[in-house]
């Protein structure tokens, strides 16, 4: 019985090997085959696609009647216009669209006001739009002068609809073939709160929220520079999501901006809800384990990057910003590195580097050493490991994989758990899985230490993306160590190293400025004294390389 279990387990072990090898050789050989049998491959691909293709009824395209209508200009007859808008908005079925008919005092004209009450400031409309119109007695005054806020005019239906959808108030006056638009948008959202994911002890605590305007204001609060440009573009066709490119005109590189704009303009999507979704559209290496766009919720961090010549993307509904291009170091760094005193900042850098290595390698090294390089372990430890492993029924690779997966499960579970239950999960995870698994002879105590250390270290890597990268990379390393000991581990490490150096984020090498070397920015593993960080990163080709003002 035990034999069969063991047998099946060693089989899974071999399967893992297979997976690893496929992954490993996939790279080199596929590229070689590409040269010779590319066409054949495509044919086969098509063949299989056809084979499995389901017959679908053709989809209907949405009615185009509305689209044609929207291009038109509005009529001067109020009744007709209102009829039209009622039809578009399905009034009265659409309950929060308000249409209010009034008679303007003095000039005695009929008028109508359309607002969407849920997204506009009704009090403001009441006091600044409707009241002045009603109480007017002057016959000669023009309507624009009656209203105290600034007024725009629009005559194309489409434009008017956009304004209404943004929460603005539209005033239609009988006999005038255009609408007056008064800004009154008031979307609901959170206020500025503390950063939750990128916590710092020393330094500002504000974080972005879901309103782009607030976010821009947070950045402008930090950079009071007239050259700070907030350029906006609409990136989706239906939802009309607005994206804001924030950069400093006389620092950020023109080519980079054009490059990003081109990429944005080439998007052809109905809706992009937020930056996290946009990230995938912008990235060059979608399948790569390594992130190439930095994602941060801290306005101080974003402004720091803007001042260095990076470009920051902001969007409504995203409590964060995207920073591009991003190098490995931007993921590795944390804003607190610079907030802490020089030595302390570098101390946490060392800790983070250690955490990175421990997370990546500790379990793989354990496997390699206990299975292949036993002589390395001091005698007492060797005997201790040997005695505790003796009663564990699985090969050590299976043992450690089991625990690693369990750890990831606890982590994922703990993340999704409603807050009140959170602490319980922690106790269950630590107690049941650690203590009980050891007592049940499922795992040996040292493995618990190893996995726990690796898992805890991974929390020291603050950036969400890099965190996932490291956690996922652990597994290939683990398996390679299981197959070939330190030799396999080093082979995979070298491949990773070669791969990482070849990644580019918007043309910037991933390990810049370390390599290819760039003598301008020196902030890589260790930070320099702030007074010595004189230059902006040269790999961005900023228009102004020096951080000092003027002379």
């Amino acid at each position, binding site marked *: 019985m035990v034999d069969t279990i063991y047998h099946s387990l060693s089989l899974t072990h071999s399967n893992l090997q297979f997976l690893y090898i496929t992954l490993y050789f996939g790279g080199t050989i596929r590229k070689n085959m590409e040269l010779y049998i590319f066409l054949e491959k495509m*044919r086969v691909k098509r063949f299989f696609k056809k084979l499995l293709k389901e017959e679908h009824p053709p989809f209907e395209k949405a009615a185009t009647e509305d689209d044609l209508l929207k291009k038109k200009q509005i009529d001067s007859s109020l009744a007709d216009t209102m009829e039209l808008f009622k039809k578009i908005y399905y009034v009265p079925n659409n309950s929060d669209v308000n249409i209010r008919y009034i008679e303007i005092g003095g000039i005695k004209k009929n008028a109508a006001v359309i607002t969407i009450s849920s997204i506009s400031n009704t009090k403001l409309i009441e006091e600044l739009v409707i009241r002045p119109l009603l109480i007017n007695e002057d016959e000669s005054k023009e309507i624009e002068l009656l209203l105290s806020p600034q007024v725009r005019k629009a005559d194309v239906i489409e434009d008017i609809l956009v304004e209404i959808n943004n929460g603005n108030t539209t005033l239609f006056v009988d006999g005038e073939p255009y609408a007056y638009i008064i800004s009154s948008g008031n979307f609901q959202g959170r206020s500025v709160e503390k950063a939750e994911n990128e916590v710092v002890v020393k330094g500002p605590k504000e974080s972005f929220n879901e309103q782009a305007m607030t976010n821009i204001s947070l950045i402008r609060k930090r950079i009071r520079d007239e050259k700070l440009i907030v350029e906006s573009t609409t990136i989706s066709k239906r939802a009309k999501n607005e994206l804001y490119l924030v950069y400093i005109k006389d620092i950020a590189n023109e080519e980079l901006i054009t490059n990003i704009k081109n990429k944005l303009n080439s998007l052809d999507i109905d809706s992009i809800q937020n930056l996290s979704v946009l990230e995938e559209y912008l990235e060059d290496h979608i399948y790569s384990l390594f992130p190439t766009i930095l994602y941060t919720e801290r306005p101080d961090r974003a402004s720091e990057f803007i001042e260095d010549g990076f470009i920051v993307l902001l969007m409504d509904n995203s409590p964060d910003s995207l920073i591009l291009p991003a190098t490995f170091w931007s993921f590795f760094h944390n804003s607190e590195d610079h907030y802490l005193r020089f030595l302390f900042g570098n101390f946490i850098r060392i800790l983070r580097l250690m955490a990175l290595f421990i997370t990546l390698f500790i379990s793989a090294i354990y496997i390699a050493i206990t299975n292949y390089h036993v*002589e390395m372990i001091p005698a007492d430890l060797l005997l201790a490991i040997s005695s505790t492993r003796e009663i564990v029924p699985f090969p050590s690779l299976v043992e450690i994989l089991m625990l690693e997966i369990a750890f990831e499960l606890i982590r994922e579970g703990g993340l999704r758990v409603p807050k009140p239950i959170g602490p319980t999960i922690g106790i269950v995870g630590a107690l049941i899985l650690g203590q009980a698994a050891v007592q049940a002879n499922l795992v040996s105590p040292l493995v618990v230490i190893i996995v726990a250390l690796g898992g805890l270290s991974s929390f020291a890597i603050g950036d969400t993306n890099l965190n996932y990268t490291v956690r996922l990379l652990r597994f290939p390393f683990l398996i390679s160590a299981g197959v070939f000991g330190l030799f396999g581990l080093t082979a995979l490490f070298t491949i990773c190293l070669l791969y990482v150096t070849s990644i580019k984020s918007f043309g910037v090498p991933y390990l810049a400025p370390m390599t290819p070397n760039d003598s301008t920015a020196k902030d890589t593993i260790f930070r320099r004294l702030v007074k010595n960080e004189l230059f902006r990163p040269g790999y961005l080709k900023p228009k102004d390389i020096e951080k000092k003002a003027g002379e």
Partner: protein
Amino acid sequence: MKTRLGLFHFLFLIFILPMLSGCWDQVSIDKRAYVVALGLDKGEDNKISITYLIANPEFSKQEGPSSEPAHEVITFPANDIISAKNTANAVIAKEITYNMLNVLIVSEDLAKDPEFIRYMYDVTKDREIKRNIPMIVTKEKVKTFLLKNKPKLETRIHKYFEFVLENSNKAGLTPNFKLHSYFSITESDAGLFLAPYATTEQIPGGKYTVGEDELLAGELKIEGEESNNSQFLGSAVFKEGKMIGTMNGEETRLTIVLNETLEMGEIYATYPDPFSPQYRFSARIMKREKNDVKINLNGYTPTIDVTVPLYMDILSIHSMETFDNGKIEQLKFHIEEEVQKKLSKLIKRTQEEFKGEAFGWSLIARKKFWTSHDFEKFDWMKTYPNMKVNVSVNVYIGTFGEQSKLPDLNQVRD
């Protein structure tokens, strides 16, 4: 088209398949039997008798005492130490490994055999055996030694060997040569190799000596618990890879004093008191400077002039003498003379009995030669017995213990 693609896949699979059976070198840490001490005895015919001391990992467990013994000793005949690994599996359940090998033990009987060196070179073939482990020579058969050697306090046997050798080295009672030196000294054919000498067989009643270290293992009378009766004292002398004799504790200490390549710790030794010869005083001897070795190879008889600087703390004086400057000079002169006499005696012994030196002088003499060809032609080993060796000792006296003055005994008794 399809067949060609199939062919590629097929080739790829063939390529992958052997990997599935992979992990060739993988042996789980818990599936190995760790040999801590490897013993070599003379066997029948050309065979040797191999003794394994295998540590029991069970014993290192934290929770609860185990009823299993701390280690296991097995002995069996084998052709060499490498194939013996397999033979042992007839008895031992786990795969034998030398990864944890802490010490190589050879019986005097085998070490004196001219064939011995052949077996030693097996060690260089197995990658699991490190060359920085010590080699011990035992008076009796290794089998008996390991069976009888049951230290009461150090039940974790690998620790025992580590500590006992480390501390007897520090005390100067055994030499600190490693296996690696056995090979390099033998191969360069210019000196003697010393290995710690040990035994569990005590001479009944022990041997009486004036000093405390003129003893060989087994000659020291130790009473107490029955089980801990192994002694590490003195050294076995190897010439050209073969054992040719022994040196007692005192000679070993003096060798360590003379030999710069051997590390010298703090040696506690006693010397006859110059002021009242019936007592001996004890001193802590240290070496703070290097020996000054002058070698002159030009004359008909090559000469070696050695000056040994010794630093001494005088510790216990049973003559209850309190020293002044004059007396210190007298004491110094006395010690210098005493040590020099002993050194000369030792050198004479090496020249006449062993016909080789164990003091690393050949290394110093190398400087006198331009090419290794000249050096080999000179043949240090052959020339050494006829050399004229002059030893002088320089003693520097440091402290006189924590309390440097002693009361006048006559007054106390008054």
